[in-house]
């Protein structure tokens, strides 16, 4: 099964164009959707999740027209929104069971087993009878993934799931995701490059509603391999470097910036070539000149 998105456009009532002619093909496996906050990731994911209308374009999931056959999509969808809340005075078992009913798990015994397994899987077993109001951010997030896994979804969409998690929680979370069967499309949106690098076989970079890059992380890295240069400069030099070069990232180390720039040749003598990282790809697309190349 393949998810094919073609020429998707969406402009909000306030005039913000959230999606500009987005075209993507997503195969089974983990797909990373990388982009800064406000890039349009959530818009895209909500549209795929049947929660938002598109102005034009199409989304096809196998035989299903996502934009019109919403009911069919929802049957095989597991969705974890970027931000969500819970009924604070209800415990995890009750709410998960409730959601399982809504998901269509109508056999009571199966539902009970499923709920228990999911709570175990997400390491919430101990806290299962506690009111969700008392859950920490990580626990809540794990509860979110538990509900997204109800009924073996064929399409899992997780929107910024690692935001706000501490590193240990994040690891556990990503492990969980990676365990999900291979014949499932998992779309993971994030603004954290690491998430994609560690998990995804395929990815897209999106900013300001536009897809800036699509392909595998490895190909992406290959594309900039050998073209990333680094230099430690002083703060006062920053402005002039910015003007002169295609600076894709600035990082402060020990009080002074280290800048990365993208260039086919060594720009200046004291720049050193560094092995390309996915992060460089990301920054190069978000801030760098490659943007123009791709659009052109």
């Amino acid at each position, binding site marked *: 099964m393949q998810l094919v998105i073609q020429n998707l456009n969406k402009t909000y*009532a306030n005039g913000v164009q959230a999606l500009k002619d987005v075209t993507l093909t997503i195969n089974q496996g983990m797909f990373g959707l990388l982009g800064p906050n406000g890039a349009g990731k959530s818009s895209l994911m*909500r549209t795929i999740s049947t929660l938002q209308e598109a102005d034009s374009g199409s989304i096809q999931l196998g035989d299903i027209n996502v934009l019109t056959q919403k009911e069919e999509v929802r049957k095989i969808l597991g969705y974890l929104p970027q931000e969500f809340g819970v009924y604070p005075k209800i415990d995890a078992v009750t709410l998960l069971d409730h959601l399982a009913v809504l998901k269509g798990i109508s056999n009571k015994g*199966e539902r009970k087993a499923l709920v228990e397994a999911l709570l175990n899987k997400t390491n919430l077993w101990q806290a299962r009878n506690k009111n969700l109001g008392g859950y920490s951010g990580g626990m809540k997030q794990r509860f979110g993934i538990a509900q997204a896994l109800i009924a*073996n979804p064929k399409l899992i969409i997780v929107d910024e799931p690692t935001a706000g998690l501490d590193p240990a929680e994040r690891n556990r979370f990503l492990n969980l995701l990676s365990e999900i069967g291979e014949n499932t499309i998992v779309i993971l949106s994030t603004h954290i490059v690491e998430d994609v690098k560690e998990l995804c076989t395929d990815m897209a970079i999106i900013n300001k509603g536009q897809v800036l890059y699509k392909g595998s992380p490895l190909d992406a890295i290959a594309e900039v391999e050998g073209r990333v240069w680094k230099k430690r400069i002083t703060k006062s030099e920053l402005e002039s470097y910015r003007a002169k070069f295609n600076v894709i990232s600035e990082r402060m180390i020990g009080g002074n910036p280290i800048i990365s720039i993208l260039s086919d040749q060594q720009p200046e003598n004291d720049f050193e070539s560094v092995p390309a990282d996915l992060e460089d790809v990301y920054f190069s697309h978000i801030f760098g000149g490659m943007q123009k190349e791709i659009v052109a």
Partner: protein
Amino acid sequence: MGRFWGSFVILLLVAASLPLAFMIGDLWPTRETERLLPFNLATYWNPFFIFVVPNMFFTGAIFFASGALSRKSIVIYTQGILLLVLYIGTSSLLRDLEQKEIASLLDPFGVRALSFYVQYWTPGEQNTLQIPFEGYILYNRLLWVGVGIVILLINHFAFSFNVVRGSFFRTKAIKDQTNRIRPEETKIPVATQYTNFATHFGQLIKLTVFYFKMVFKEIPFLAIVIAGILLLLVNAINLNELFGTSSYPTTYTILGLLGSFNLFFLIIAVLYSGELVWKERSVNLNLIIDAMPMPDFISLISKFLGLLLVYIVLIAGLIVSGIFIQMSYGYYKFELGIYIGTMYTETLAFLVLYTLLSMFIHVMVNNKFLGFAVAVALFIIFDFMPQIGIEHSLFRFGSGGLETYSDMNVYGHFVLPFSWFKIYWLAFAALLFAIAVIFSSRGSEDVITMRWKAGKLRLTRPLMALIISSVALFVSTGFYIFYNTNVVNEYTNKDEREALQVDYEKTLKKFEFTPQPRITHINLKVDVFPSTRDFTAEGYFYLKNKTNAPISDIHIQENASSLVKTEKLEFNRKNGVKEKFDKFKYTIYHLADALQPGDSVRMDFKTVFKTNGFTETNASNTNVVYNGTFFNNLYFPTLGYNEGYEMSDDNDRKEKKLPAKERMMERNDPRGLSQSLFGDDADHVQFEIVLSTDKDQVAIAPGYLQKEWEEGNRKFFHYKMDAPMCNFFSIISARYEVKRDKWNDINLEVYHHKGHEYNIDKMMEGMKDALAYYSKNFSPYQYRQVRILEFPRYSNFAQSFANTIPFSEGIGFIAKIEDPDKDIDYPYYVTAHEVAHQWWGHQVMEAGVKGNAMLSESMSQYSALMVLKHKFTPEIIERYLKYELDRYLSGRAGERKKEQPLELVEGQGYIHYQKASLIFYALQDYISEDSVNAAFRRFNNQWRFKDSPYPTSADLLKEIRKVTPDSMQYLIKDMFQTITLFENKADSAFYKEKGKDKFEVTLYTTAEKVRADSAGIESPVAINDWIDIGVYGKSKAGKDSLIYLKKHKIIKKENQFKITVNSKPRKAGIDPLHKLIDRHSDDNSKGLVKKEK
């Protein structure tokens, strides 16, 4: 604190805009100067500073403190509702005379204190006086501002010590334990996903129960429910009171009481329909839920069903409370069927409709707070629709109630229109619901066009079917209702009715005094068909020319109701129609040979009353019903112009450019003197009637039963009166039980509904005692029977026809007379009053001029009061008079035109009933009961059974004057000819012990006497009156008892009395028994303090 004062000032500024706007309105150039008083600044700002500012301070302080201390908005909500309960609850206390003071203190907003203070202000005083800042108003304001200050202080100290403490209820953080189970090893089992109908049905049930539980767990919800039930219990203290005497808590009484919960139901419906529509979004769970594979309507419908379940449970709870209240009154006749039949139809339909409407609003507006605002605004608009001319029930959301329940007629004919209207509105609500399903926001789209884009996809076959069928049902029931209310029946709105009134007056007023013959014989055959609510009447009148000139034009006015048709109207001499006013159902017949003075003509007619289909529930006829038909001769043709059809309110008349009019003719108007209170159609008439009705009912009219027989399914009754009677007769048909008794040779009968036996013996006793007293003191009773006939509670009165007294089931039949020291036996009393009308009204008919009711009504009041006086303790009489005083004083406060002295009363009940009780009671106290009776007797002898001219109040006063000693003659002016009030007060009192069993009481009093004009503006008059001075001791039972009571002549305002009594005095006062009309009757007596030498 700064925050508090800041918001307080802003609140005040906002509130100040209201009086400011009124003031601007008053100064506006287009002001209707002649209807308004001159501008006065204080009128606008006094109430603001006395009420608004303290109220804002107090409520602000409470809300601020509770908010700051609890940090929970629900606590604030709950408080608001408790304040509301206190406010509404005090209004029920205010109804009881003894609880008025408590009520005026307890109401946090001071409204009760104000109404307590100004309750007896006459229209003149209301117009001119400013709100006083004294007495209970002052105490109330001080109390609640004080409460506000205390709360602020508590808040100040509690808050400053507890800033770091956080909330009262700290939620415990849950530790995220790592555990022994290794999540990695957990396998997620395969669970089968179903998306069939059964699954969706299961989801619906699950969600319904989920939302139901959710509402029930809400603290504000519980607070509202508890507040509502509290209010219910407060209201249950005084059930259906008349004269401070309760009724039996019959199921319909309790249902009326449960109606006070409807406000809370509405709050719940509006609040929680909104809350549930927004539930997922308010906790931000909506995206997860919305992505679940459920059909689109399930979310909304389960929310609706959840609320429905809440209502069903609440109603069950209310029914249980109702039964509990009945049990607490020792009443065990539980009629579960009526509870269920009313609450689960009318109440539930109201809730369902408002819930669906409110959900629709929330979906369409798609903004929580705006949604609430729109819903509330819409409900207010619904209330105001009639004022802007939208009157028809088809346009008034949720219209069509079950109306009055009657034990006799059960739900009666209201069920049919109720059902149709409810189907109509439910279809409408279903349509709204379907639209809401289409537009409900699923996902993150808020814009209506996008919701429509998504919604179009939801137009599945079932939803389309719902839309089409609800539209079809709505339209077809709408047409059917319209067909019934407007085609089969005649529909008129207020403007049309008023226009017709105006037109009637303008066209026909010229015939008002056209001489007409008078009815002398009535012979009718009336067939009543209760099951179809029809009757036909066929028969004849003899009309006699009693004037001195020939009459050739006979003016016939048919009953204005469109249900009444005159199918035949013939004279037994040659005639033709001279002029016909179809619009007014008014026809002038011309007799070829004029009717000569003293000559008679026979008029044969057939009147048919036919009920077709149904009308709007509030416009339906309640005279001809399934069980308990009661109508009178006004359904038959009458003679000449009917002044009663005219517009009476002077403001309305002015708007229609009609001249202001007097309510009644002057006392010396010869036209008025020539006609009795029953109108100018007849003097006395010979009366004979044959009634028929369904076999299981009894039909009754005035007269003696000649014969009773059955024919097929019908039962026939032939009644005949053996002596002339007045032209006023009732026709009654119902399924009755009869209780019979005899007083001397007179047959006494009480026809009553089975199950309403409670007070029949009291009524019997009332008839006997009344007949005995009146026969002895006034004149013999003219008939050989008295019958009381119960009729349904669509009206609450009893009325005296010749030897026949229809008596509403709503008064008397279910009165609960329990405590002989406290309860006023009004079934007995009303019976005595109605029996008195057989003398005053039937034996002596008075002229239809100003002051007429002083003869029929006031004389009956006096007569009944005397019967009461000989039957019950003086305390009961005093209590009764206290209620009469209260009702007189409140009645005059609400006078719209002008207050008249008793002798010129113009149909003003508070004068001819309430004031008359006080006046005549005082009169017999001053000049003796025998003297008053002697005057009544002479008046009766002189006017008994006389035709025109008829007596007036002047004729009675002439007799009263004759029996009044010279020293008391001034009373006649005070009591009958002017509006005289007293302000008697005991200022201080003490006593000294002068020896064994010898006590000297010293009492300082003030006494003032004022006369009021017709607007209630008072002017002082010199006092020169005999007034009671009384001293109370203690009886053996420990109660106050009079040990000294004597009239003293009082000639100046301030007086001192020294009275020696021979047992220990406790209290002393001036006019301690409230015989004189005094607006502050509770300050007449004072407790005594002992003074040593």
